[in-house]
């Protein structure tokens, strides 16, 4: 009700005060980021009534297409654009990390209540179909003291293309040479075994309904629905469960290997760091390096800066992992390079 009122008031404002210049910004892409982005846009709009947002969560791939066609002003993607996709728009794109995503494995093993632990290669072999039983010696070795049944493993993966799949397959490619050569990484891959289900809700429903199933969902979804999630062994050799803090820790650890000029498309799965959750990734807002409309460019830069600073406070509550603070000066430097018709548009932070 309150929201509707706000909208109504804003709409009236638009009619009664047509002189105040309105900047309309449209975006499209990631469904994963949708909840956070919508929240950001509403909050930002309260303090900056002159900027109107319209974000459509049509999926990362479709978002990249619309962004490349300049149908929308910014895109949002859980998987970075490929070099060839960037080449198609003459490299006129910046990847700005806005939040982090983590991907925990979730499972349904009748009679097992303890949190299971998976080392990377074991997880890869489960998804490759070379480990087929829950009481396989290698799973048992990772989980001392847990009584695992002699049950077939049913792999459940996303049937739709998804950034969640990208993060998992990126991790599996790093920890398993077999996975890297046979399957590779991508938003959609040629899954060697298992059932496909649509969306995180489809995967979690199928896992819940299938005894012996293992799947993967995004962190926010697992937290919101209280799914049983497994801990995964990180590079430091520690089993860490996916958690807002452990995902941020992964990014913080990855920053140590980056420099202020690093392309933010960088993969941060399997980083160093004792507390880092290894299946973690940035998710990106895609903005142009150069815009045609100066007012639009300025509004986008201000909003983006607000999102990666003040906006980060909203992340935890909504089930997203916030960016590490150390990233902020790098992001500021990156946003300062955005131009409109060749002229810089950065004018300092917009405030709250």
């Amino acid at each position: 009700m309150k929201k509707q009122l706000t909208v109504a008031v804003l709409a009236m404002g638009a009619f009664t005060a047509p002189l105040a210049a309105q900047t309309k910004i449209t975006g499209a892409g990631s469904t994963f980021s949708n909840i956070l982005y919508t929240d950001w846009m509403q909050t930002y709009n309260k303090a900056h009534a002159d900027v109107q947002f319209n974000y459509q969560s049509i999926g990362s791939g479709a978002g990249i297409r619309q962004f490349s066609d300049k149908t929308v002003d910014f895109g949002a993607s859980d998987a970075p654009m490929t070099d060839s996709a960037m080449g198609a728009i003459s490299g006129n794109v910046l990847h700005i990390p806005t939040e982090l995503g983590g991907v925990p494995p979730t499972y349904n093993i009748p009679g097992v209540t303890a949190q299971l632990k998976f080392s990377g290669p074991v997880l890869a072999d489960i998804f490759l179909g070379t480990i087929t039983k829950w009481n396989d010696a290698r799973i048992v070795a990772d989980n001392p003291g847990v009584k695992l049944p002699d049950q077939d493993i049913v792999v459940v993966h996303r049937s739709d293309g998804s950034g969640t799949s990208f993060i998992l397959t990126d991790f599996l490619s790093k920890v398993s040479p077999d996975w890297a050569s046979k399957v590779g990484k991508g938003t959609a891959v040629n899954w060697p075994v298992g059932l496909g289900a649509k969306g995180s809700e489809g995967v979690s429903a199928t896992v819940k309904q299938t005894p012996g199933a293992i799947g993967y969902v995004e962190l926010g979804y697992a937290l919101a629905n209280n799914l049983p999630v497994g801990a995964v062994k990180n590079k430091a050799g520690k089993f860490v469960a996916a958690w807002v803090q452990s995902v941020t820790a992964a990014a913080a650890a990855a920053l140590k290997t980056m420099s202020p000029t690093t392309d933010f498309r960088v993969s941060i799965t399997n980083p160093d760091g004792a507390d880092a959750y290894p299946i973690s990734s940035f998710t990106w807002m895609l903005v142009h390096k150069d815009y045609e409309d100066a007012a639009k460019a300025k509004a986008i830069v201000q909003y983006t800066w607000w999102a990666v600073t003040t906006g980060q406070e909203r992340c935890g509550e909504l089930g997203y992992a916030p960016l590490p603070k150390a990233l902020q000066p790098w992001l500021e430097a990156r946003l300062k390079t955005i131009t409109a018709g060749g002229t810089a548009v950065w004018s300092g932070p917009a405030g709250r």
Partner: protein
Amino acid sequence: MVGETTPGKLSRAMSTTFPQTITSAPSEPMAPASTLSAAPRPTRRHYGDRVYRWLLTALALTLPLLLVAIVAELIVSSWPSIHKFGFSFIWTSVWDPVGEVYGAAPMIFGTLVSSLLALVIAVPLSLGVAIFLTEFAPKWLRQPVAFLVELLAAIPSVVYGLWGIYVLIPLLRDYAAPPIRALLGWTPLFNGIFYGNSMLAGGIILAIMIVPYIAAISREVLLAVPATQREAALGLGATRWEAVWGAVLPYGRAGIIGAVMLGLGRALGETMAVTMVIGNRHDIALSLFQPGYTMAAAIANEFSEATSTMYLSALFEVGLVLFVITIGVNAFARLLVWRVARGTAVGSKAL
């Protein structure tokens, strides 16, 4: 067959007389308002007729044009894929977005098998319902049951999908699959482990979804069979069953085949409910216990995240193949109905 020939003659008569009057219209000048009452009233009406005719022609042409536009767009968009993979797209099974290799055979197979399975289940069921409702059910029961069956068609397909995941699949896994495996597990149709999401589940969901269409149309067809058919058969000493089987059903053959084909068309294109229960696996497995994939499900699943041109193009080609198969099924249905209808007409003349 008097009733059939009259409208035909009439329309032929109309088509020959009307053009003459219309072509004469433009040569006559528009009458001034003052002389309107005298004679040229028909001229005005003919002018209106002409506009009306052009309007209708334009409207009628819109749909075929739309169809042509869709085919053109599908071919243009799938050209990179057609060019790269050629016919191997149709019979190879690898679907690897990472390596950019696409073969749609599992989806084509899955679409056909799930739809045929649906027909195998739905046709006897629907015909049974239709025959019961028209021939055997007490009067007070007919309308409510017919209404309930048709109500099945109003349920959104995503609801069928949810019901499939939460009700049908556990039922199949816990109660239906074990005895089937014990009995028929040695046949290739039912071997392997049953996880739930499978071709079998997809076929059953589809069957339930197309039953209302086939049943409702078959019922209308059977209702349209003249009472004399039944009376004649009964009068010759047939039992009620023999009357239905020997006199009523053959009379309605064409309509029933049409109903079945409509159901098949719907099964081929159904997306949401199928994708939720079929397992979405790019694989050809003979066993109905194994997961599969359909073309419509693949497009719905993968389209929004297809980033590369070739991936997108391959999905468009899947759409093109689905389109061609659907058109083919419809053409086949037309042919069948036409042949059967001709047979019926000859048969009834002989009667």
